[in-house]
């Protein structure tokens, strides 16, 4: 799709890749601040949808636009955002990572069992935290290597490794959720700084790092090109395998961080700690405007997608929508948003995989 070579990812003004019809290199003049933001989070549908939802819920419910709800919104957004950011790198390749829940389970348990806990006498402090995150990275590495070098479809590989993650977590779990007793570690993710939940601060940090990776590193930039047209990138001498594996490592790391964050929030390591996050995260990525076929999208757009889902779930509860109907309303809004978002892309995305 993107014929202008691996260097050109997003043209800043439209938030979509340069077309074959415009062979000129991207405009070298620096975009204005507003255009820069638009380029980052995507100009059209999703951002508008988010603003509309926020406006609607602010008018329709008395509590939506309150400090306490803002704080709960931010903390609900945090974990989903971190997972979705990681997934974005893989979906940009046109691949999928279905191991999120298994990886979160394992990383949460590795973290809690190495930190001070009520199961064993270990108390490794920060080492536990790093081990928890690295557990995720290792799963990502495994995913990437199996997918890229053994040439197994990514959704099959990651379904399998996800099951391994759940299995490993079940063994570590040993019948009851081990509790995190290290108050210092837990304090990193539990509670607020002012009105800002600490989890949200972690998520913002992850977002900034991910934006930098996407913009300034090879794995970030080649990701677009590989997702756009892998054979061309390969022909131009890029070590495609390496960057694909690295993208999976990024995704695994995201799930690993999310597992640790969830453990900090709940105060336990748990096999089901990531339950429900897998498809919500994929939805967030796609809703934001990253195409499942690869090559189009970005981390900033994912922020919008994750925010839409979080606002919707929160707003529908505040609105008092019957829980039996809620899930359908959520589904409906998502379908409408995706169709609206994808409308301008219909012709370009020829195949839906």
């Amino acid at each position: 799709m993107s014929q202008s070579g691996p260097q050109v990812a997003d043209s800043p003004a439209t938030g979509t890749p340069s077309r074959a019809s415009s062979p000129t290199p991207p405009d070298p003049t620096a975009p204005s601040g507003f255009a820069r933001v638009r380029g980052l989070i995507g100009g059209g549908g999703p951002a508008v949808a988010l603003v509309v939802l926020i406006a609607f819920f602010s008018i329709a419910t008395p509590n939506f636009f309150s400090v306490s709800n803002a704080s709960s919104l931010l903390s609900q957004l945090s974990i989903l955002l971190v997972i979705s950011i990681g997934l974005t790198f893989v979906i940009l390749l046109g691949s999928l990572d279905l191991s999120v829940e298994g990886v979160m389970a394992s990383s949460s348990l590795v973290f809690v069992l190495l930190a001070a806990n009520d199961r064993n006498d270990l108390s490794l402090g920060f080492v536990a935290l790093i081990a928890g995150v690295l557990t995720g990275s290792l799963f990502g590495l495994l995913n990437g290597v199996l997918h890229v070098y053994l040439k197994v479809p990514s959704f099959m590989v990651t379904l399998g490794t996800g099951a391994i993650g759940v299995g490993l977590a079940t063994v570590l779990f040993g019948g009851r959720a081990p509790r995190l007793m290290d108050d210092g570690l837990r304090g990193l993710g539990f509670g607020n700084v002012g009105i800002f939940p600490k989890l949200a601060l972690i998520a913002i940090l992850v977002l900034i790092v991910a934006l930098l990776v996407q913009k300034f590193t090879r794995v970030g930039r080649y990701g677009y090109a590989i997702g756009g047209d892998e054979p061309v990138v390969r022909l131009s001498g890029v070590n495609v395998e390496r960057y694909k594996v690295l993208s999976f490592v990024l995704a695994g790391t995201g799930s690993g961080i999310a597992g640790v964050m969830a453990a900090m929030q709940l105060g336990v390591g748990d096999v089901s700690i990531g339950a429900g996050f897998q498809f919500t995260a994929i939805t967030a990525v796609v809703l934001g405007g990253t195409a499942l076929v690869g090559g189009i999208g970005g981390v900033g757009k994912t922020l919008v997608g994750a925010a839409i889902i979080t606002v919707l779930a929160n707003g529908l509860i505040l609105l008092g929508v019957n829980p039996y109907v809620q899930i359908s309303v959520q589904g409906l809004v998502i379908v409408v948003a995706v169709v609206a978002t994808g409308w301008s892309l219909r012709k370009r995305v020829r195949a839906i995989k």
Partner: protein
Amino acid sequence: MNTFGSLPRWGKRAAGVATIMAVAIGLGACSSAADDNKPAASGDKSDVLLVQGIRSLSNSYHANWAAGGDLFGESVGKKVIVLSDEADSQKQLSLVKGLAAKGQVYALNIDPNTSSDTEAIVRTVTEAGGYVVTQWNKPDDLNPWDIGDHWVAHIGFDGTGIGKDVSQTLFDSMGGEGGIIALQGILDNKPAKQRFAGLQEALKANPGITLLDDQTANWSRTEALSVTQTLLAKHGDKVKGVWAANDEMALGALEALKAAGLAGKVPIIGFDAVPQALDEIKSGTNKYVATVSTDPWWQGGAALSLAYKAATGEIDVSKLSHDQRAFYAEQSIVTKDNVEKYTKAPTLEALKPDLDDPFKRFSAAIN
């Protein structure tokens, strides 16, 4: 997307279909292979094999269930075989089929993974000449007498009655007035519906209590935390109590209360008696006032005893009433006063009356 990279577009699709078919054929081959284990039941009623069918020894509930079965085994001087299926319905069925190969009459006490697994399991047992008691899951329109005497009985637990009682415990701890929020399980799950119906009955009897909101958190601790956060933002300090349809969700809600500085001020109840909930009830600092226990030791011991008595002929299944063959068993409310009883296994002596009379905790007929 690039797995079948060098193939033309239709070739990719064909290769994908071929992969799916290969997997399907593989699965089919597995199940037909299991069918070859033809039953070889011998009729020796004095040498009955004792078998438990549980999900996994790695969860405390089923571990306690197995321990209850071992107590019964001890009482008749036999070892108990434990089949653990790790929540895999196919594996559960093939494990049960494998029992025929032992060539002994067996008594099986099993927790079918889902309602739709129950019929295949009880038919397998019937063919092999074993005797089975099922618990928790069966299709509503299928009863033991439809299949025959080898499906001895089905034991369920009615969430409505106990749900009403435990809700009352919550209301009492609130002084009989104020608003509560309710966290429901997966909405079409039977226990979720029954437990919520119990809450609604209790609400009718307590006009001072208002249900501010009910939302589903799908049995999940993580979801319960975020739903509770939202509900606290919505209702603020009107929330004087939290009702959750299981302990996992109650524990998630507790973390939300902690984050809001409300832990220990707002009482909570749950169901299922998971270990952490029992710890909370024991300590009392966070006002986790009650949970409900089905008593897994009883489930493992008494139901296995029922299957065994049918297998040895001590109980004539054809003479049991329909009420006895599909019944709800009693459950108990666990509070600070009796929590010790539910944190460790009973002695054989304490469980003996229930082993001798498996119907001792009969509470109501299912039909």
